[in-house]
């Protein structure tokens, strides 16, 4: 097994009435890491805390050697100063802007605004060139999500956060967008954190998995190691599946 360059550190403590999260994560700086668990397990909260959208009571977040939050020093970088891309469950495109202006919104503000190459690449990667002058309301769910991913990529993030990007889509749309996520995986250098409660998505996309249960990390490691462990598979048995690592060639 190749050594993993560990470049994301996140220690997050949240205590709300009826919900607590206590996660200490060290994640690889490459590939897709799935934050996996049932609803209420704290996966979205973890993601939102890493982005700074939610302010954990006590947290330490470091990405690529850059500290984003360190409450022991009372340091909190607001989300707009964190070099990240975030894709929301239902895309969250700005309804008053065309697709093009949605894409340009972050692109212009990240200092790479003049870089047309990146723009063209992102548009090609997500295959949305034909949608540029449309308004978000006139797009299908899958198209909207592709635009949202491209919009996030155009801020030149050092970390891409995806919050259940397929959850709002039906089976057909899901199948339509999964190949794009795989392309993302193959063509991007940056790490991706992917929140999901769907085992099939995780199996198809993730390299690394963090299993969350009731606000605690139940397991964390390379996908095949974690899902191969019998005790874990049994707990997630509502959707039984097996993982076979193989090379076809």
């Amino acid at each position, binding site marked *: 097994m190749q050594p993993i360059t560990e470049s994301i550190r996140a220690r997050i403590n949240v205590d709300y009435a009826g919900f607590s999260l206590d996660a200490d994560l060290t994640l690889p700086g490459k590939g897709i890491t799935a934050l996996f668990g049932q609803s209420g397990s704290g996966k979205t909260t973890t993601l939102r805390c890493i982005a700074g959208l939610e302010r954990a009571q006590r947290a330490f977040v470091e990405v690529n050697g850059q500290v984003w939050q360190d409450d022991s020093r009372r340091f909190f970088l*607001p989300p707009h100063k964190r070099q990240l*891309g*975030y894709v929301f469950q239902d895309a*969250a495109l*700005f*309804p008053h802007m065309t697709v093009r202006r949605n894409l340009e*919104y972050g692109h212009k503000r990240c200092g790479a605004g003049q870089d047309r190459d990146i723009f063209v690449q992102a548009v090609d990667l997500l295959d949305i060139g034909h949608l540029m002058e449309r308004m978000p309301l006139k797009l299908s769910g899958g198209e909207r999500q592709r635009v949202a991913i491209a919009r996030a990529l155009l*801020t030149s993030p050092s970390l891409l956060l995806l919050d259940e990007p397929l959850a709002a889509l039906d089976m057909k749309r899901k199948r339509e967008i999964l190949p794009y996520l795989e392309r993302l995986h193959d063509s991007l250098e940056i790490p991706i954190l992917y929140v999901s409660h769907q085992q099939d998505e995780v199996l198809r996309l993730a390299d690394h998995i963090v299993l969350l249960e009731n606000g605690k990390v139940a397991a964390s490691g390379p996908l095949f190691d974690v899902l191969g462990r019998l005790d874990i598979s049994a707990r997630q048995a509502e959707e039984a599946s097996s993982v076979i690592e193989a090379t076809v060639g």
Partner: protein
Amino acid sequence: MDISTEDWAAIRLTLELAGSVTLLLLVIGTPIAWWLARTRSPVKSLVSAVVALPLVLPPTVLGFYLLVLMGTNGPVGHLTQKLGLGLMPFTFPGLVIGSLFYSMPFVVQPLQNAFESIGEQPLEAASTLRAGPLDVFFTIVVPLARPGFLSAAVLGFAHTVGEFGIVLMLGGNIPDKTRVVSVQIYDYVEAYEYAHAHLLAGGMMAFSFMVLLALYITNPSKKLCSR
């Protein structure tokens, strides 16, 4: 019957008053409405109640207190005299100040509703796209709340045009300075000049109706001033 020069002066004065009050209220009311829409502070109810007070108070009460505050012996009166501004009551600026309080809820509430209906998500999305708070406000909130700004401006304007009690208390009845249309109508009625009164009152009716009609046509699904 023609509209007399005095009537024209009253109409012009009314429009000037309503125009400046509306502009000022959009500037003052926007941050208040934004704060009310976003805050979880326990003071929120208190501020909401103060802002809404003119909705239930007789305008004469509001006018009376402002008169006392801004008069020769009032604290505000002392201040304005010291600053060399003279006394506010029975002047146009005094009327503007009174109207600001009086029409405040009609501007703040539609704005607050509009801000609340935008929700958290577009703001969060913008902040993950490197936009700071002010940037988010002007590029996301203002365009998305445009119908709210329109309602606020129209209601603030129309409500100021329609005020009477506060003008009488605070402005007196000085031609060209503080005699607005509603006071002019009152004068005509006092003097049994019903024909003149009809002309102005009818004009006010038509004006108010047109304004509201236009608002509902452009903005059919919105409640104007739901609380």
